[in-house]
Protein backbone atom coordinates (compact mmCIF):
# COMPACT_ATOMS: atom_id res chain seq x y z
CA UNK A 1 0.00 0.00 0.00
CA UNK A 2 0.98 3.62 -0.35
CA UNK A 3 1.50 3.99 3.35
CA UNK A 4 4.04 1.20 3.34
CA UNK A 5 6.92 3.49 3.87
CA UNK A 6 5.25 5.62 6.49
CA UNK A 7 7.02 5.71 9.78
CA UNK A 8 5.51 6.09 13.18
CA UNK A 9 6.45 9.75 13.12
CA UNK A 10 4.63 10.50 9.91
CA UNK A 11 1.45 8.86 11.05
CA UNK A 12 1.67 10.85 14.21
CA UNK A 13 2.04 13.95 12.11
CA UNK A 14 -1.01 13.23 10.06
CA UNK A 15 -3.08 12.72 13.15
CA UNK A 16 -2.01 16.04 14.58
CA UNK A 17 -3.85 17.86 11.79
CA UNK A 18 -7.20 16.58 12.96
CA UNK A 19 -8.91 18.74 15.52
CA UNK A 20 -10.54 16.04 17.62
CA UNK A 21 -8.28 13.86 19.60
CA UNK A 22 -7.94 10.49 17.95
CA UNK A 23 -7.56 7.18 19.69
CA UNK A 24 -3.93 7.20 18.81
CA UNK A 25 -3.51 10.45 20.71
CA UNK A 26 -5.38 9.15 23.66
CA UNK A 27 -3.33 5.99 23.75
CA UNK A 28 -0.15 8.00 23.66
CA UNK A 29 -1.46 10.32 26.32
CA UNK A 30 -2.33 7.39 28.55
CA UNK A 31 0.96 5.80 27.61
CA UNK A 32 -0.72 2.42 27.52
CA UNK A 33 -2.67 0.52 24.91
CA UNK A 34 -5.52 -1.81 25.80
CA UNK A 35 -5.40 -4.93 23.69
CA UNK A 36 -7.95 -7.70 23.70
CA UNK A 37 -6.59 -11.24 23.52
CA UNK A 38 -7.70 -14.71 24.54
CA UNK A 39 -6.41 -16.32 27.68
CA UNK A 40 -6.87 -19.92 26.69
CA UNK A 41 -6.14 -20.41 22.98
CA UNK A 42 -2.60 -21.65 22.61
CA UNK A 43 -0.59 -21.22 20.53
CA UNK A 44 -2.29 -17.98 19.36
CA UNK A 45 -3.03 -16.27 22.59
CA UNK A 46 -2.95 -17.76 26.05
CA UNK A 47 -1.72 -17.19 29.56
CA UNK A 48 1.25 -19.28 30.54
CA UNK A 49 2.01 -20.98 33.82
CA UNK A 50 3.54 -17.79 35.16
CA UNK A 51 0.48 -15.75 34.36
CA UNK A 52 2.09 -14.01 31.38
CA UNK A 53 0.31 -13.54 28.09
CA UNK A 54 1.92 -15.54 25.31
CA UNK A 55 1.36 -16.66 21.76
CA UNK A 56 1.43 -15.47 18.19
CA UNK A 57 -1.20 -12.75 18.66
CA UNK A 58 0.58 -11.60 21.77
CA UNK A 59 3.98 -11.38 20.08
CA UNK A 60 2.52 -9.11 17.42
CA UNK A 61 0.64 -7.08 20.01
CA UNK A 62 3.83 -6.48 21.94
CA UNK A 63 5.61 -5.30 18.83
CA UNK A 64 2.75 -2.93 18.10
CA UNK A 65 3.03 -1.46 21.59
CA UNK A 66 6.75 -1.15 21.24
CA UNK A 67 6.43 0.73 17.98
CA UNK A 68 3.60 2.90 19.16
CA UNK A 69 4.66 3.66 22.72
CA UNK A 70 8.27 2.69 22.68
CA UNK A 71 7.86 -0.11 25.19
CA UNK A 72 6.38 -3.54 24.68
CA UNK A 73 5.22 -3.67 28.26
CA UNK A 74 2.91 -0.68 27.92
CA UNK A 75 -0.05 -2.93 27.28
CA UNK A 76 -3.12 -3.45 29.35
CA UNK A 77 -4.18 -6.98 28.46
CA UNK A 78 -7.90 -7.56 28.30
CA UNK A 79 -8.86 -11.23 28.30
CA UNK A 80 -11.90 -11.66 26.07
CA UNK A 81 -14.26 -14.43 25.13
CA UNK A 82 -15.31 -15.22 21.59
CA UNK A 83 -18.77 -13.84 22.27
CA UNK A 84 -17.80 -10.44 23.61
CA UNK A 85 -14.98 -9.29 21.32
CA UNK A 86 -17.11 -6.81 19.41
CA UNK A 87 -18.69 -5.45 22.56
CA UNK A 88 -15.26 -4.64 23.91
CA UNK A 89 -14.43 -2.67 20.78
CA UNK A 90 -17.78 -0.97 20.38
CA UNK A 91 -17.85 0.25 23.96
CA UNK A 92 -14.25 1.42 23.81
CA UNK A 93 -13.14 -0.91 26.57
CA UNK A 94 -10.23 -2.04 24.38
CA UNK A 95 -8.37 -0.10 21.73
CA UNK A 96 -7.25 -3.00 19.62
CA UNK A 97 -8.63 -6.52 19.30
CA UNK A 98 -5.96 -9.11 18.69
CA UNK A 99 -7.94 -12.14 19.87
CA UNK A 100 -7.44 -14.27 16.77
CA UNK A 101 -10.22 -12.39 15.06
CA UNK A 102 -11.24 -13.91 11.72
CA UNK A 103 -12.38 -11.40 9.13
CA UNK A 104 -15.99 -12.03 8.05
CA UNK A 105 -18.45 -9.77 6.28
CA UNK A 106 -20.81 -9.72 9.27
CA UNK A 107 -18.05 -8.67 11.58
CA UNK A 108 -16.76 -6.11 9.12
CA UNK A 109 -20.11 -4.38 9.41
CA UNK A 110 -19.60 -3.68 13.08
CA UNK A 111 -15.85 -3.28 13.48
CA UNK A 112 -13.02 -2.08 11.28
CA UNK A 113 -10.44 -4.70 10.42
CA UNK A 114 -6.90 -3.65 9.73
CA UNK A 115 -4.66 -5.51 7.31
CA UNK A 116 -4.49 -9.24 8.13
CA UNK A 117 -1.42 -10.82 9.69
CA UNK A 118 -2.36 -14.46 9.22
CA UNK A 119 -4.34 -16.85 7.05
CA UNK A 120 -6.45 -19.76 8.20
CA UNK A 121 -7.94 -22.66 6.42
CA UNK A 122 -10.30 -25.11 7.95
CA UNK A 123 -9.28 -28.71 8.09
CA UNK A 124 -11.28 -31.74 9.13
CA UNK A 125 -9.84 -34.50 11.23
CA UNK A 126 -11.46 -37.88 11.72
CA UNK A 127 -10.55 -41.34 13.04
CA UNK A 128 -8.55 -43.60 10.77
CA UNK A 129 -11.15 -46.30 10.40
CA UNK A 130 -13.85 -43.90 9.32
CA UNK A 131 -12.14 -41.09 7.52
CA UNK A 132 -14.09 -38.10 6.29
CA UNK A 133 -12.54 -36.98 3.06
CA UNK A 134 -15.30 -34.73 1.83
CA UNK A 135 -17.71 -32.40 3.52
CA UNK A 136 -20.60 -34.18 1.85
CA UNK A 137 -19.83 -37.26 3.95
CA UNK A 138 -20.79 -35.28 7.05
CA UNK A 139 -24.49 -35.17 6.15
CA UNK A 140 -26.45 -36.70 9.01
CA UNK A 141 -23.35 -36.96 11.21
CA UNK A 142 -22.12 -34.80 14.01
CA UNK A 143 -19.20 -32.46 13.48
CA UNK A 144 -17.19 -31.21 16.42
CA UNK A 145 -16.13 -27.56 16.46
CA UNK A 146 -14.83 -25.05 18.95
CA UNK A 147 -17.11 -22.16 19.86
CA UNK A 148 -16.37 -18.85 18.18
CA UNK A 149 -13.86 -20.23 15.69
CA UNK A 150 -13.75 -19.77 11.96
CA UNK A 151 -14.77 -23.39 11.59
CA UNK A 152 -17.98 -22.83 13.51
CA UNK A 153 -18.80 -19.73 11.51
CA UNK A 154 -18.02 -21.47 8.24
CA UNK A 155 -20.24 -24.47 8.83
CA UNK A 156 -23.10 -22.47 10.35
CA UNK A 157 -23.06 -20.27 7.26
CA UNK A 158 -22.44 -22.75 4.48
CA UNK A 159 -23.71 -26.08 5.77
CA UNK A 160 -26.58 -25.30 8.15
CA UNK A 161 -27.74 -28.91 7.84
CA UNK A 162 -24.64 -30.45 9.33
CA UNK A 163 -25.21 -30.92 13.02
CA UNK A 164 -22.50 -29.20 15.03
CA UNK A 165 -21.26 -30.19 18.46
CA UNK A 166 -19.87 -26.97 19.85
CA UNK A 167 -17.47 -26.93 22.80
CA UNK A 168 -16.29 -23.94 24.73
CA UNK A 169 -12.70 -25.00 25.21
CA UNK A 170 -10.15 -26.25 22.74
CA UNK A 171 -9.14 -29.07 25.02
CA UNK A 172 -12.73 -30.20 25.34
CA UNK A 173 -13.20 -30.00 21.59
CA UNK A 174 -10.35 -32.40 20.92
CA UNK A 175 -11.28 -34.55 23.93
CA UNK A 176 -14.74 -34.95 22.43
CA UNK A 177 -13.22 -36.35 19.25
CA UNK A 178 -11.12 -38.77 21.30
CA UNK A 179 -14.26 -39.86 23.19
CA UNK A 180 -16.00 -40.45 19.87
CA UNK A 181 -18.69 -37.83 20.45
CA UNK A 182 -18.74 -36.88 16.77
CA UNK A 183 -17.72 -38.23 13.38
CA UNK A 184 -15.08 -35.58 12.80
CA UNK A 185 -13.64 -32.34 14.05
CA UNK A 186 -13.23 -29.12 12.08
CA UNK A 187 -10.74 -26.48 13.19
CA UNK A 188 -7.94 -24.30 11.91
CA UNK A 189 -5.93 -26.77 9.85
CA UNK A 190 -2.70 -25.64 11.44
CA UNK A 191 -3.93 -26.76 14.84
CA UNK A 192 -5.20 -30.00 13.39
CA UNK A 193 -1.86 -30.84 11.85
CA UNK A 194 -0.18 -30.27 15.16
CA UNK A 195 -2.71 -32.35 17.01
CA UNK A 196 -2.58 -35.44 14.80
CA UNK A 197 1.15 -35.50 15.30
CA UNK A 198 0.49 -36.38 18.97
CA UNK A 199 -2.59 -38.50 18.37
CA UNK A 200 -1.98 -41.43 16.09
CA UNK A 201 -5.14 -43.01 14.80
CA UNK A 202 -6.53 -39.76 13.48
CA UNK A 203 -6.02 -38.27 10.06
CA UNK A 204 -6.74 -34.94 8.45
CA UNK A 205 -9.06 -36.31 5.76
CA UNK A 206 -9.79 -32.80 4.56
CA UNK A 207 -6.77 -30.51 4.71
CA UNK A 208 -8.36 -27.26 3.63
CA UNK A 209 -11.87 -26.29 2.67
CA UNK A 210 -13.72 -23.15 1.80
CA UNK A 211 -12.18 -19.81 1.20
CA UNK A 212 -8.98 -19.07 2.89
CA UNK A 213 -9.89 -16.74 5.73
CA UNK A 214 -7.68 -14.14 7.26
CA UNK A 215 -7.01 -13.03 10.80
CA UNK A 216 -6.60 -9.32 11.38
CA UNK A 217 -6.38 -6.78 14.16
CA UNK A 218 -9.65 -4.95 14.63
CA UNK A 219 -10.53 -1.52 15.96
CA UNK A 220 -13.80 0.18 16.72
CA UNK A 221 -15.90 1.12 13.73
CA UNK A 222 -14.80 4.45 12.34
CA UNK A 223 -11.55 4.61 14.25
CA UNK A 224 -9.59 5.38 11.09
CA UNK A 225 -6.63 6.92 12.80
CA UNK A 226 -5.81 3.78 14.68
CA UNK A 227 -6.68 1.40 11.86
CA UNK A 228 -4.49 3.31 9.46
CA UNK A 229 -1.66 3.27 11.92
CA UNK A 230 -2.10 -0.47 12.44
CA UNK A 231 -2.33 -1.09 8.69
CA UNK A 232 1.01 0.56 8.19
CA UNK A 233 2.47 -1.24 11.15
CA UNK A 234 1.33 -4.68 9.94
CA UNK A 235 2.76 -4.04 6.51
CA UNK A 236 6.03 -3.05 8.10
CA UNK A 237 6.07 -6.13 10.28
CA UNK A 238 5.30 -8.36 7.33
CA UNK A 239 8.09 -6.88 5.33
CA UNK A 240 10.61 -6.73 8.11
CA UNK A 241 10.12 -10.42 8.72
CA UNK A 242 8.96 -9.86 12.29
CA UNK A 243 5.83 -11.87 11.70
CA UNK A 244 7.78 -14.74 10.29
CA UNK A 245 9.96 -14.62 13.40
CA UNK A 246 6.93 -14.65 15.60
CA UNK A 247 5.67 -17.63 13.64
CA UNK A 248 8.88 -19.52 14.24
CA UNK A 249 8.81 -18.67 17.91
CA UNK A 250 5.22 -19.42 18.75
CA UNK A 251 3.40 -21.36 16.08
CA UNK A 252 6.00 -23.58 14.49
CA UNK A 253 6.64 -25.61 17.68
CA UNK A 254 2.93 -26.35 17.94
CA UNK A 255 2.44 -27.25 14.32
CA UNK A 256 3.74 -30.30 12.59
CA UNK A 257 7.05 -29.75 10.85
CA UNK A 258 5.64 -30.36 7.37
CA UNK A 259 3.54 -27.22 7.41
CA UNK A 260 4.65 -24.56 5.01
CA UNK A 261 4.69 -21.18 6.78
CA UNK A 262 3.37 -19.71 3.57
CA UNK A 263 0.06 -21.39 4.17
CA UNK A 264 -0.30 -19.38 7.35
CA UNK A 265 1.49 -16.12 6.86
CA UNK A 266 0.56 -13.27 4.56
CA UNK A 267 3.00 -12.05 1.88
CA UNK A 268 5.31 -15.04 2.00
Amino acid at each position, binding site marked *: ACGAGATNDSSEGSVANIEDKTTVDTIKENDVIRIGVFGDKPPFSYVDANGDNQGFDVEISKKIAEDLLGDSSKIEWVITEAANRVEYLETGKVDLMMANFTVTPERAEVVDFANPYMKVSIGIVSPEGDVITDVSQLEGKQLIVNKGTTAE*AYFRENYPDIEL*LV*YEQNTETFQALLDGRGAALAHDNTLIFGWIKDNPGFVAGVEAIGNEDTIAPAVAKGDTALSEWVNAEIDTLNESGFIAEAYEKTLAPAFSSDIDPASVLINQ
Partner: protein
Amino acid sequence: MDLDFIRKAIPMYQEAAFLVLRLGWIGIIFAFIIGLIVSIVRYYKLPVLSQFFEGYIEMSRNTPLMIQLFFLYFGLPQVGIHLSAEVCGILGLTFLGGSYFAEAIRGGLESVPNIQMESASSLGLSNTQTFLYVIFPQAIANSFPSIGANIIFLLKETSVFSAIALADLVFVAKDIMGLYYKTNEALFLMVTTYLVFLLPISLLIHFIERRLRFAGFGN
Protein backbone atom coordinates in the same frame (compact mmCIF):
# COMPACT_ATOMS: atom_id res chain seq x y z
CA MET B 1 -32.69 -3.91 16.38
CA ASP B 2 -32.61 -5.98 13.28
CA LEU B 3 -36.10 -7.45 12.90
CA ASP B 4 -35.19 -9.63 9.96
CA PHE B 5 -32.41 -11.11 11.96
CA ILE B 6 -34.70 -11.72 14.90
CA ARG B 7 -37.16 -13.50 12.66
CA LYS B 8 -34.38 -15.70 11.37
CA ALA B 9 -33.01 -16.44 14.82
CA ILE B 10 -36.29 -17.30 16.50
CA PRO B 11 -36.24 -20.96 15.42
CA MET B 12 -32.84 -21.41 17.08
CA TYR B 13 -34.21 -20.11 20.35
CA GLN B 14 -37.30 -22.19 19.96
CA GLU B 15 -35.20 -25.28 19.56
CA ALA B 16 -33.08 -24.33 22.56
CA ALA B 17 -36.20 -23.73 24.64
CA PHE B 18 -37.56 -27.13 23.70
CA LEU B 19 -34.26 -28.74 24.57
CA VAL B 20 -34.21 -27.02 27.95
CA LEU B 21 -37.81 -27.96 28.67
CA ARG B 22 -37.37 -31.53 27.55
CA LEU B 23 -34.17 -32.18 29.50
CA GLY B 24 -35.27 -29.87 32.29
CA TRP B 25 -38.48 -31.69 33.01
CA ILE B 26 -36.99 -35.13 32.86
CA GLY B 27 -34.16 -33.98 35.11
CA ILE B 28 -36.54 -32.28 37.49
CA ILE B 29 -38.75 -35.36 37.75
CA PHE B 30 -35.77 -37.57 38.47
CA ALA B 31 -34.40 -35.00 40.89
CA PHE B 32 -37.74 -34.96 42.62
CA ILE B 33 -37.76 -38.73 42.98
CA ILE B 34 -34.21 -38.67 44.37
CA GLY B 35 -35.18 -35.80 46.64
CA LEU B 36 -38.17 -37.76 47.85
CA ILE B 37 -36.15 -40.85 48.65
CA VAL B 38 -33.37 -38.89 50.30
CA SER B 39 -35.74 -36.79 52.36
CA ILE B 40 -37.70 -39.81 53.56
CA VAL B 41 -34.52 -41.62 54.53
CA ARG B 42 -33.30 -38.55 56.38
CA TYR B 43 -36.70 -37.88 57.96
CA TYR B 44 -36.87 -41.40 59.39
CA LYS B 45 -33.13 -41.18 60.19
CA LEU B 46 -32.38 -44.58 58.70
CA PRO B 47 -28.87 -45.46 59.82
CA VAL B 48 -25.92 -45.43 57.38
CA LEU B 49 -28.08 -44.49 54.41
CA SER B 50 -28.98 -41.27 56.15
CA GLN B 51 -25.32 -40.30 56.66
CA PHE B 52 -24.52 -41.32 53.14
CA PHE B 53 -27.23 -39.09 51.76
CA GLU B 54 -26.11 -36.22 53.92
CA GLY B 55 -22.70 -36.52 52.25
CA TYR B 56 -24.42 -36.49 48.89
CA ILE B 57 -26.41 -33.39 49.75
CA GLU B 58 -23.33 -31.46 50.84
CA MET B 59 -21.41 -32.54 47.77
CA SER B 60 -24.17 -31.65 45.40
CA ARG B 61 -25.16 -28.29 46.86
CA ASN B 62 -21.70 -26.92 47.41
CA THR B 63 -20.23 -27.43 43.96
CA PRO B 64 -21.18 -25.84 40.65
CA LEU B 65 -23.32 -27.77 38.18
CA MET B 66 -20.87 -26.90 35.44
CA ILE B 67 -18.10 -28.91 37.03
CA GLN B 68 -20.46 -31.73 37.92
CA LEU B 69 -21.46 -31.92 34.25
CA PHE B 70 -17.87 -31.82 33.20
CA PHE B 71 -17.04 -34.88 35.23
CA LEU B 72 -20.07 -36.75 33.92
CA TYR B 73 -19.33 -35.88 30.33
CA PHE B 74 -15.56 -35.94 30.08
CA GLY B 75 -14.71 -37.92 33.19
CA LEU B 76 -16.86 -41.02 32.82
CA PRO B 77 -15.51 -41.97 29.36
CA GLN B 78 -12.12 -42.34 31.05
CA VAL B 79 -13.54 -45.27 32.96
CA GLY B 80 -15.36 -46.60 29.94
CA ILE B 81 -18.80 -45.11 30.50
CA HIS B 82 -19.99 -43.19 27.49
CA LEU B 83 -23.11 -41.14 28.05
CA SER B 84 -24.63 -38.76 25.56
CA ALA B 85 -24.66 -35.06 26.35
CA GLU B 86 -28.40 -35.15 26.88
CA VAL B 87 -28.14 -37.99 29.36
CA CYS B 88 -25.34 -36.15 31.16
CA GLY B 89 -27.47 -33.02 31.29
CA ILE B 90 -30.35 -34.94 32.81
CA LEU B 91 -28.07 -36.72 35.26
CA GLY B 92 -26.42 -33.45 36.23
CA LEU B 93 -29.74 -31.80 36.95
CA THR B 94 -30.81 -34.88 38.85
CA PHE B 95 -27.64 -34.85 40.92
CA LEU B 96 -27.92 -31.16 41.70
CA GLY B 97 -31.71 -30.95 42.01
CA GLY B 98 -31.96 -34.09 44.13
CA SER B 99 -30.32 -32.36 47.07
CA TYR B 100 -32.35 -29.17 46.71
CA PHE B 101 -35.60 -31.10 46.58
CA ALA B 102 -34.47 -33.34 49.43
CA GLU B 103 -34.00 -30.36 51.70
CA ALA B 104 -37.26 -28.77 50.59
CA ILE B 105 -39.30 -31.91 51.18
CA ARG B 106 -37.60 -32.68 54.46
CA GLY B 107 -38.58 -29.20 55.64
CA GLY B 108 -42.16 -30.04 54.71
CA LEU B 109 -42.04 -33.40 56.45
CA GLU B 110 -40.66 -31.90 59.61
CA SER B 111 -43.35 -29.24 59.67
CA VAL B 112 -46.08 -31.85 60.01
CA PRO B 113 -46.95 -31.88 63.72
CA ASN B 114 -46.18 -35.09 65.55
CA ILE B 115 -49.75 -35.33 66.71
CA GLN B 116 -50.81 -36.03 63.14
CA MET B 117 -48.77 -39.20 63.10
CA GLU B 118 -50.04 -40.17 66.52
CA SER B 119 -53.67 -39.68 65.70
CA ALA B 120 -53.24 -41.64 62.50
CA SER B 121 -51.65 -44.56 64.35
CA SER B 122 -54.29 -44.42 67.04
CA LEU B 123 -56.85 -44.95 64.29
CA GLY B 124 -55.03 -48.17 63.44
CA LEU B 125 -53.29 -46.97 60.27
CA SER B 126 -50.05 -48.77 59.47
CA ASN B 127 -46.81 -46.78 59.19
CA THR B 128 -47.01 -46.86 55.42
CA GLN B 129 -50.64 -45.79 55.41
CA THR B 130 -49.87 -43.02 57.87
CA PHE B 131 -47.12 -41.77 55.61
CA LEU B 132 -49.14 -42.04 52.42
CA TYR B 133 -52.44 -40.63 53.56
CA VAL B 134 -51.47 -38.28 56.35
CA ILE B 135 -47.84 -37.19 56.44
CA PHE B 136 -46.90 -36.99 52.80
CA PRO B 137 -49.81 -34.92 51.45
CA GLN B 138 -49.26 -32.33 54.15
CA ALA B 139 -45.50 -32.33 53.70
CA ILE B 140 -45.80 -31.73 49.98
CA ALA B 141 -48.27 -28.94 50.49
CA ASN B 142 -46.01 -27.33 53.08
CA SER B 143 -42.90 -27.60 50.99
CA PHE B 144 -44.51 -26.64 47.72
CA PRO B 145 -43.30 -23.03 47.76
CA SER B 146 -39.70 -24.14 47.97
CA ILE B 147 -40.27 -26.97 45.52
CA GLY B 148 -41.66 -24.40 43.09
CA ALA B 149 -38.74 -22.04 43.59
CA ASN B 150 -36.37 -24.95 42.97
CA ILE B 151 -38.12 -25.90 39.74
CA ILE B 152 -37.53 -22.41 38.37
CA PHE B 153 -34.00 -22.42 39.70
CA LEU B 154 -33.21 -25.75 38.04
CA LEU B 155 -34.70 -24.68 34.72
CA LYS B 156 -32.44 -21.64 34.79
CA GLU B 157 -29.46 -23.75 35.78
CA THR B 158 -29.73 -25.47 32.40
CA SER B 159 -27.86 -22.43 31.09
CA VAL B 160 -24.59 -24.17 31.89
CA PHE B 161 -25.46 -27.07 29.62
CA SER B 162 -23.38 -25.43 26.92
CA ALA B 163 -20.34 -26.69 28.83
CA ILE B 164 -21.15 -30.10 27.40
CA ALA B 165 -22.12 -28.90 23.93
CA LEU B 166 -25.86 -28.78 24.48
CA ALA B 167 -27.50 -25.90 22.66
CA ASP B 168 -29.31 -24.23 25.55
CA LEU B 169 -30.53 -20.63 25.43
CA VAL B 170 -27.33 -19.06 26.65
CA PHE B 171 -25.42 -21.14 24.16
CA VAL B 172 -27.53 -19.89 21.28
CA ALA B 173 -27.26 -16.31 22.46
CA LYS B 174 -23.50 -16.52 22.82
CA ASP B 175 -23.26 -18.17 19.45
CA ILE B 176 -25.15 -15.40 17.75
CA MET B 177 -23.09 -12.79 19.52
CA GLY B 178 -19.86 -14.56 18.67
CA LEU B 179 -20.67 -15.21 15.02
CA TYR B 180 -22.85 -12.34 13.89
CA TYR B 181 -22.36 -9.78 16.60
CA LYS B 182 -26.05 -9.13 17.06
CA THR B 183 -25.68 -8.67 20.79
CA ASN B 184 -28.89 -6.72 21.37
CA GLU B 185 -30.97 -9.11 19.36
CA ALA B 186 -29.37 -12.15 20.94
CA LEU B 187 -29.95 -10.97 24.49
CA PHE B 188 -33.43 -9.69 23.75
CA LEU B 189 -34.44 -13.03 22.32
CA MET B 190 -32.90 -14.85 25.22
CA VAL B 191 -34.80 -12.84 27.84
CA THR B 192 -37.99 -13.15 25.84
CA THR B 193 -37.64 -16.89 25.54
CA TYR B 194 -36.97 -17.29 29.24
CA LEU B 195 -39.98 -15.12 29.89
CA VAL B 196 -42.18 -17.09 27.54
CA PHE B 197 -41.54 -20.38 29.20
CA LEU B 198 -40.67 -19.40 32.76
CA LEU B 199 -43.57 -17.04 33.30
CA PRO B 200 -46.34 -19.60 32.70
CA ILE B 201 -44.49 -22.08 34.89
CA SER B 202 -44.04 -19.48 37.57
CA LEU B 203 -47.72 -18.53 37.39
CA LEU B 204 -48.75 -22.17 37.49
CA ILE B 205 -46.64 -22.68 40.58
CA HIS B 206 -48.20 -19.65 42.27
CA PHE B 207 -51.61 -20.98 41.38
CA ILE B 208 -50.95 -24.45 42.78
CA GLU B 209 -49.38 -22.90 45.83
CA ARG B 210 -52.55 -20.99 46.54
CA ARG B 211 -54.67 -24.07 46.01
CA LEU B 212 -52.50 -26.00 48.43
CA ARG B 213 -52.74 -23.49 51.24
CA PHE B 214 -55.26 -25.74 52.97
CA ALA B 215 -52.36 -27.32 54.73
CA GLY B 216 -52.11 -24.18 56.85
CA PHE B 217 -54.15 -25.37 59.77
CA GLY B 218 -56.36 -22.92 61.65
CA ASN B 219 -56.30 -19.61 59.83
